């Protein structure tokens, strides 16, 4: 039963398993499903295991049981969105600029027609390729251009469901907001980086070591001798080096900031340095890169077990990286090519990774990125990338 329904889900990219499908059959045989509404709920809870797919599920359900065609935004819908957007724009141009990611000044100069065209182009881009959630204007939860009637950030639920048939509920597509990847939040970073911790005994001795206690008790001719140990605590040392210069890093400020905030609240022993594009003889402890320079050579005195995380887009002019006098600062004393500095760092700190905020498919376009990849293992600055980086760091054996 409902085999088609099942396969449509699979085709549309919901990871469904035969086991769960059989389970649904079991639920129906047990008489748990009395109506289409019940079926909607039961099938979803049993088959769909992530709220990301709820929206797709709603669409498939509506398609399957009512023949609603799969929606890529229709002309009418687009017009509707455009109209709503125009209104919003008249009310609050600034917020609009933020939402669309256009410069404020530029936006002011645009005519309504131009604006709508720009907007439509963005939207079409999205319907063609389903990646690049940052451009998906229509359903962006916080965007003032939110799809007509979709409450920003919230969804209709529950109380109303009595008056709605399952199909209607499914057609409302209440879970639209969840169908895109959310931004990397502090909490997610915490999840990923937690595993980096290196436990070492510190603090007061307040844990009983059973093996030693028994041994010592025996030695003591049966007179109990309790042996205490120190607790295991995280003693991880981290050096975070952030590329904070130049326009090329600007789009990633948010995500880097999140990483920064997380790191500074989480790791007890954290040093943060800044650089521009690549590393020459010095890095700076202050974000302006003026007051507190630190010689890269001095870093050799640090604990070699320190984890070094470099964040940067690794794309620059090749001579900046390769040429012995490539430093773009006038006062920088020539210390050899920057690439040598990077090799030096990689040699000093065995546990080192390079986090690149650019998507990995763009890495091949920059020669410098490729060069740096040969020195440091490079990962995308996304949740997945962070996890891989952490895995890499923890899998290294002494």
């Amino acid at each position, binding site marked *: 039963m409902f085999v088609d329904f099942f396969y449509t889900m699979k085709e549309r990219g919901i*990871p469904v*398993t035969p*086991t*769960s499908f059989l*389970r649904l059959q*079991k*639920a129906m045989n*047990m008489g*748990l499903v009395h109506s289409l*509404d*019940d079926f909607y*709920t*039961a099938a979803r*809870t*049993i088959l*769909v*295991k*992530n*709220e990301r797919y*709820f929206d797709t599920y709603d669409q498939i359900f509506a398609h399957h049981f009512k023949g609603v065609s799969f929606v890529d935004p229709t002309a009418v819908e687009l017009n509707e969105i455009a109209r709503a957007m125009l209104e919003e724009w008249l009310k609050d141009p600034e917020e609009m600029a933020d939402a669309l990611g256009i410069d404020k000044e530029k936006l002011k100069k645009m005519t309504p027609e131009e604006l709508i065209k720009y907007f439509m182009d963005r939207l079409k881009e999205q319907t063609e390729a389903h990646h690049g959630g940052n451009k998906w204007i229509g359903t962006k939860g*916080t965007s003032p251009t939110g799809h007509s009637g979709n*409450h*920003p*950030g*919230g*969804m*209709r*639920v*529950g*109380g*109303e*469901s*009595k008056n709605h048939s399952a199909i209607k509920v499914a057609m409302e597509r*209440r*879970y639209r907001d*969840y169908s895109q990847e*959310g931004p990397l*939040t*502090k*909490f*997610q970073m915490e*999840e*990923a980086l*937690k*595993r980096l911790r290196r436990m070492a005994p510190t603090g007061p001795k307040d844990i*009983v070591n*059973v093996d030693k*206690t*028994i041994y010592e*008790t025996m030695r003591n001719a*049966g*007179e*109990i001798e*309790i042996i205490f140990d120190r607790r295991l605590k995280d003693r991880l040392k981290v050096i975070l080096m952030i590329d904070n210069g130049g326009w090329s890093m600007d789009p990633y400020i948010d995500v880097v900031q999140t990483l920064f905030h997380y790191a500074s609240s989480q790791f007890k022993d954290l040093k943060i340095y800044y650089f521009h594009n690549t590393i020459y003889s010095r890095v700076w402890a202050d974000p302006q890169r003026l007051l507190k320079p630190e010689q890269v050579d001095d870093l050799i005195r640090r604990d070699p077990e320190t984890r070094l995380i470099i964040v940067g887009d690794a794309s620059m002019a090749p001579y900046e990286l390769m040429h012995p006098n490539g430093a773009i600062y006038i006062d920088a004393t020539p210390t050899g090519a920057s690439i040598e500095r990077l090799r030096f760092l990689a040699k000093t700190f065995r546990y080192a990774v390079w986090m690149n905020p650019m998507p990995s498919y763009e890495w091949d376009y920059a020669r410098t990125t490729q060069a740096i990849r040969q020195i440091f293992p490079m990962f995308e600055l996304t*949740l997945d990338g962070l996890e891989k980086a952490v895995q890499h760091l923890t899998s290294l054996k002494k």
Partner: protein
Amino acid sequence: MSSEKKSSKFSGASKYVLDDELAEIVNVSMSLEMPLLLKGEPGTGKTMLAHAIAESLQMPLIILNVKSSMKLIEALYQYDTLTRLNDSRFGDSKRDVSNIEAYIKMGKIGQAFTADKRTILLIDEIDKADNDFQDDMLDVLDQMQFDIIEIDKTIKARHRPVIIITSNAKKDLSDPFLGRCNFHHIAFPNPDMMRMIVDVHFPNLDEEMVDVCISTFYHLRELRGVEKKPATRELINWIRALKSDPDFKPKMLRQGRVPFLGILFKKSADFYQAAQQIKARG
């Protein structure tokens, strides 16, 4: 056992407003004997649901609060070596030192398995533990039994507990884990639903107060640049605080003044952001 199942259908509790969808999901999961995995924004009542089921079906509730350093065995049982050592030295207890079983204490999962009647087992914030813990635990819950290696004994569940698992993480749990659970995502309630929730918690609150609190609350959720938006839990606590303040008048909220902001925004950056924007709005 099947007759028992039919009689026990979950339909809501005194302090929990349940929508039909969720009730159906809980009942399906109970009948299929599958753990139910609940996700959703913090403070939308994931944990409360387990309490509500326990209350409504009159079943004892056993809560396993997962911690990041937790090992599965701690959730199953503990072998109290120190007491045994002590007893063997002084021999003044009634326990039989040569009987190791006397020193085995059941952990939360063990308690749920050995209980006299069917229990609700709430496994709270599973995402805190690592993947191994999650997968191993699901093995135990799947087979409904585990071994105590010290005494070579298998503990089988006497009654299959109703298992509710909550997770805050956006990150996916592992596939084998998800494969063994039913899943539901608790969405943030809409204002009407929220009204019902507030009514349940504060039955005697006057209409105007409820109106103004809820509308202010949804307004505050829309402030820009806030990392942790206030959720149901924060709203309930906030109303409780407003109620107990003799100087508070609902009028104040209409005028754009928001007392006890710290109850709603708990991160200092968020608090500052919110205060700024409220002030700017005047």
